[in-house]
């Protein structure tokens, strides 16, 4: 007598196995699984087969990362094939090598100070936003549109033109070529982060035999020699509107982000570093953002001086 369908049994077996892979498997869980397996010979049969399927994963050495099988979302096959192809041609040309080594940010075409966000319209119709503490140069000629990012972060919407000149952003660690698109580029201490909102961009690290195309909804980080696999974009562009949107953000990360927009020092005590914060905060008035923070989390802002603030656990 068949009360449960095969499909149901497969679902149940999968649910059991997922339970066994959980962080909090209890003795009761294991006991209950045993009972389920013994309740019906078909249960046991499916369980055995499911284990065989699952063993295929464990057959792989631990140098194999999930990322190998993950970039497929949002990246089409043609783009993935690029991984293997062009790369070599660009090796060692040292994109940034011919730039002068003096701190160019003081001579930059456009710059913003701490806390400032500035929109810039370019002659080809491209629109860009400079985030806090950013410096860029703009070089347009008959063949190319080049933006040099000296420091900080920019958000770009490239203009449409025919015939189309190549549009790219040059950074210390490599080049980002726009293929009709909206994306942001941020220079971090030791790497570049690129997040794509629309269209594709192509990444070419300065000293690596690799390039990679990433698509809308993805982001990645790269250095002069390494490209990380793309992940789902989480980089926030609300800064354009003077806002910081936090969704379940670690307080330590939140503090670091807010600190970019503030003069002086803003730090976070490690006892509250792991607290999670969600909400929309003003970047143009970080004092108010900090005041709001105290209302939603058990933290107190301690001012040593006006420019030295620290987030501490609030005393009970």
């Amino acid at each position, binding site marked *: 007598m068949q009360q449960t369908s095969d499909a149901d049994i497969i679902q149940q077996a999968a649910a059991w196995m*997922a339970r066994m892979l*959980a962080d909090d498997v209890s003795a009761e869980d294991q006991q209950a699984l045993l009972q389920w397996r013994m309740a019906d010979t078909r249960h046991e049969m499916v369980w055995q087969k499911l284990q065989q*399927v699952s063993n295929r994963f464990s057959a792989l050495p*631990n140098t*194999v990362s999930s990322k190998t099988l993950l970039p497929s979302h949002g990246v089409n096959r043609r783009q*993935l094939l690029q991984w293997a192809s062009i790369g070599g041609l660009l090796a060692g040309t040292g994109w940034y090598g011919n730039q002068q080594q003096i701190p160019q940010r003081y001579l930059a075409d456009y710059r913003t100070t701490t806390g400032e966000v500035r929109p810039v319209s370019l002659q080809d119709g491209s629109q860009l936003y400079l985030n806090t503490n950013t410096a860029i140069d703009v070089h347009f000629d008959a063949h190319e549109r080049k933006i040099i990012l000296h420091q900080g972060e920019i958000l770009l919407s490239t203009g449409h033109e025919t015939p189309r000149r190549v549009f790219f952003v040059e950074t210390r660690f490599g080049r980002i070529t726009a293929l009709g698109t909206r994306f942001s580029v941020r220079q971090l201490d030791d790497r570049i982060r690129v997040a794509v909102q629309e269209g594709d961009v192509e990444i070419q690290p300065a000293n690596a035999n690799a390039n990679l195309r990433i698509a809308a909804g993805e982001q990645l980080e790269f250095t002069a020699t390494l490209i990380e696999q793309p992940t789902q974009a989480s980089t926030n562009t609300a800064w354009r509107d003077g806002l910081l949107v936090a*969704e379940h953000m670690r307080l330590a990360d939140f503090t670091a982000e807010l600190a970019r927009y503030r003069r002086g020092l803003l730090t976070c005590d490690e006892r509250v570093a792991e607290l999670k914060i969600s909400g929309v905060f003003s970047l143009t008035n970080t004092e108010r953002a900090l005041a709001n923070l105290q209302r939603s989390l058990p933290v107190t802002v301690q001012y040593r001086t006006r420019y030295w603030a620290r987030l501490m656990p609030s005393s009970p």
Partner: protein
Amino acid sequence: MPGVEPIAQQQSLETLYSDHHTWLVRWLRKRMNCSHHAADLAHDTYLRLLTTGNTPPVTESRRYLTRIASGLMIDLYRRRRVESAYLDSIRYLPEPEIPDTETRQLIIETLIEIDVMLDKLPTNVRRALLMRQLDGYSYREIAEHMQVSVSSVEKYVAQGLAACYLAVNGTST
């Protein structure tokens, strides 16, 4: 096999080849942007027909050929994608940790098998299952990374495992 009609309407592989080979190569070339691979895949398509011993009814020839060819094309792309992603991932490993050619080949084959099993699964399911099974992350870590609840991760993993089961065994127990 759907589309295969009574024997009277069957045609020989020879006529299937002489009538449609050139057309099939052109069809493939248009989709693959490479005449070399197009010729190879057309060849493989006929080889597949030869080994299965099935030939389509005359009126269905091209539909039948393109169905096989499309399948082969997907396999080829999958292989290239998985292969290059894997080779890329080991590129920066320290020398002693880089597997030898034979081991690499085995790993790639296994990865392709897994990729086939995970075909068409939603990204969340795929990600949760792979992060648990390949990387060994805990549900809590995965939940944090994906910004979902721990119970969702468990649900995704279950969904992924069931899909793998079905991909390998079909619906039968």
